[in-house]
């Protein structure tokens, strides 16, 4: 049994965000393929409080640096693998005891410290690079958006770009989430790149949960909802604001747009600051915040919804929400951008694309009253390509070939 160590800068116990879910699916796949697979996270407990004993929580000065610069926490955690005595000791113990033949790097950052550590230990495993985004570009955009110090941005982006280039060139297999990212990774010098788009697990609906939502909305005299699921990641709100806007007057009184996930709180905080904006003060007349939900509760809400909304206009990689929307079997109103990495799926029935605000709003209104179209055999098969078991096939074929 080949031994594989997967390293990330966040834990995957009880995965919440897209990155965690992707890594969790990969680890499970390794195990199901017969690998002796272990996972370790090097992370800060400022952001995560649910993790395994084997995960490494950064402490001391590393933690303090992350507190003062939370948006470069991933870089600090990666650096800590070599520069932080405690983390280095823990990682060294793991590497020397487990002796992984394959090390998979999730999202570049662990390689900042792992590369020099492997050199020091003279350990030469096969490297697999699992890319979720073009990280140096994402970080540059984020830090420029936060108006960080220019020299800080330059230094940080350089470190990430250099690491991303190194891991891309060192890796025997590079997995990318979209065709666009494949091109970028080839430019960075990748020997072999394979498409492994984001996917999801099969969604199971609990009838009781669905009935709960039916009753709750019934009490509000709401018959139909359009659901937007998202985290408190600013681009999620920017996309909605751009494609739908704050003015929800086109939604009838017996319908709502419902927000599930931490985006609910994000929107409330944002709109609270806009007390003289008619759109902001009337927003909740036609919208609801369902808040953060357990997976079962969320699945029930998805099943109750008439439409799933994907007003995505930016962000690297591809979006797990797109995969969830397709596999849900619900009507979907989305931008073209939302289907990056899932281009084939746009032709499925029940998928409605709109790329400007007026069309997007009109589509929501129109699609609310359209009946759901049942998928034929081939269409159903195409929809299932979003399941993790299908999304990771090519990646694992390549890994098996080099392992």
């Amino acid at each position: 049994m080949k031994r594989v160590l997967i390293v990330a800068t966040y834990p995957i116990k009880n995965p919440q965000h897209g990155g965690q879910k992707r890594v969790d699916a990969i680890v499970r796949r390794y195990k199901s393929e017969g690998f002796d697979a272990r996972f370790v996270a090097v992370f800060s407990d400022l952001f995560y409080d649910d993790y395994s004993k084997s995960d490494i929580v950064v402490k001391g000065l590393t933690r303090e640096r992350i507190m003062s610069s939370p948006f470069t926490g991933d870089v600090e955690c990666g650096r800590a693998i070599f520069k932080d005595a405690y983390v280095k000791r823990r990682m060294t113990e793991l590497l020397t005891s487990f002796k992984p033949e394959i090390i998979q790097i999730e999202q570049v950052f662990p390689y900042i410290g792992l590369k020099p550590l492997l050199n020091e230990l003279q350990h030469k495993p096969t490297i697999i690079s699992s890319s979720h985004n073009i990280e140096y570009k994402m970080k540059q955009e984020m830090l420029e958006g936060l108006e960080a110090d220019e020299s800080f941005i330059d230094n940080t982006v350089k470190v990430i770009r250099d690491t991303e280039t190194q891991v891309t060139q060192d890796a025997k297999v590079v997995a990318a989430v979209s065709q666009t990212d494949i091109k970028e990774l080839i430019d960075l010098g990748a020997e072999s790149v394979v498409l492994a788009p984001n996917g999801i697990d099969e969604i199971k609906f609990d009838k009781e949960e669905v009935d709960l939502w039916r009753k709750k909305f019934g009490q509000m005299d709401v018959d139909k909802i359009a659901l937007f699921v998202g985290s408190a990641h600013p681009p999620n709100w920017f996309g909605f604001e751009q494609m739908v806007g704050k003015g929800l007057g086109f939604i009838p009184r017996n319908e709502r747009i419902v927000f599930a996930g931490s985006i609910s709180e994000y929107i409330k905080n944002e709109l609270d600051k806009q007390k003289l904006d008619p759109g902001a003060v009337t927003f909740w007349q036609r919208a609801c915040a369902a808040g953060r939900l357990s997976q079962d509760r969320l699945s029930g809400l998805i099943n109750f919804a008439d439409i799933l909304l994907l007003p995505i206009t930016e962000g690297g990689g591809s979006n797990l929400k797109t995969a969830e929307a397709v596999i849900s079997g619900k009507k979907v109103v989305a931008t073209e951008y939302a289907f990056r990495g899932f281009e084939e799926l746009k032709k499925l029935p029940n998928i409605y694309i709109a790329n400007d605000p007026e069309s997007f709003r009109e589509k929501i209104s129109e699609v609310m009253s359209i009946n759901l179209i049942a998928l034929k055999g081939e269409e159903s098969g195409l929809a299932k390509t979003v399941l993790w078991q299908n999304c990771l096939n090519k990646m694992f074929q390549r890994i098996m070939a080099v392992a």
Partner: protein
Amino acid sequence: MAKLLEQNVPKNNGGCMRRKSPTTWIDMTDLSIWRGHFTGIQRVVYSLAVRFSENSSVSYFMYDQKHQKFYGFDFDNFRTMVESQAHLEADVSASSRAKLIAQELIRRLPSHVRSRITPEVRNRLRGSYLRARAVYVKSRQLIASGRMPPRNEVIFNTEDTVLILGNSWERPKIIDSLWQAKIKSNFKLFQLVYDLIPIYQPQAFNLELFERYCKHIFEVASISDGLMAISESSKRDMQRLCDELHIKNPPIHVIRLGDDIPSTVHVERPVAVRANDRYVLCVGTIEARKNHSLLYYVWKEAHRQGLEMPKLIIVGRVGWYTGDVVHFIQLDPAVRDNIHILENINDRQLAWLYQNCLFTVYPSYYEGWGLPIAESLAFGKLCIASNTSSMPEIAGDLIEYFSPYDSSECLKQVVSFLNSDRLLKKEKEIARSYNPTSWDDTYKQMKKIIG
């Protein structure tokens, strides 16, 4: 006399009112708290209700916010009471203090109690303070004990038309109730929109009103089959809000409100004004938006330049965000003897003031309509007014304009019309060209819109 109420109380509960379709229903809730004098909006509702009653198949209702139901409103009784009041006020010499108190007590009765008192009885009650007091006390007891039966609930039918002409934002639950009723009957709903000033001039009010008003107008636009704005300016604002909030516009029509001209049959000089005073008149509530501070600066600057100015008489109750300007007017030695604020002026006194002023001035920086401008012209008096929002729509070139943000421009206009030849020429033009709008005209416009 107090037994009259109990004798006339039916034993059974009030039923539902349904009329033969199609019926036009008019919301009279604003008039259920009538205190003997109409506010501006109450006057609009009443004036149109009278025309509808004389010309159409119409019924009247009021909204009970506590129980979220619609109940019938006896308009005939109410109208009789209003007209009796007018006669009483006209016959000033006959009013004794006791009669006025009796009258006040009758007014304070809830409308569904007043509706049980016939006009004949009401007249008798007015003549006796003791009888009026007894009726008032008894009615309160009956209501408190629950023995006063409920009113007739109103159910709208499919072909009916419902008109909301008043202050519906003060009873926001009416929207929910109308919506629920519309789901069942799908009647046609029209609402009158006065202005969106709390939304687009929020500095004139407080933040709480901005939010409440936005939400209310949002819902009004969402459920109405048609809206009627009182000016093109209000229509533009409504359109702007619908565009901003992506509300699929109900059609927005414009109607012109009737010019409410105080009767000149009996006029009365206010005590504070001398018969030979030369003055410019400004009518309207003293609130920040009405911009009386501009007039303060105009008269102050005139004083500084040594210009001889007529008095400025400001008629209106003191409202909100005006503490500073009233303080300045009342204390500044440069203007305090030349600017007078008169509150509690009745219609007879107002008519006298219009008749005897040089001209009027209206410096408001934003209006839904601007009734005092129309009033001024109806009295044949020039109005010098702001050139913003709805004001230029009232009488076009018959009015002289200035920017409400430019006191020197206003001063220039005021001074130019102290020239009697110029003023006379303008007054002749007004007399020749201005046609007041009657409430009959307003009714006809509205009838055409609602079909």
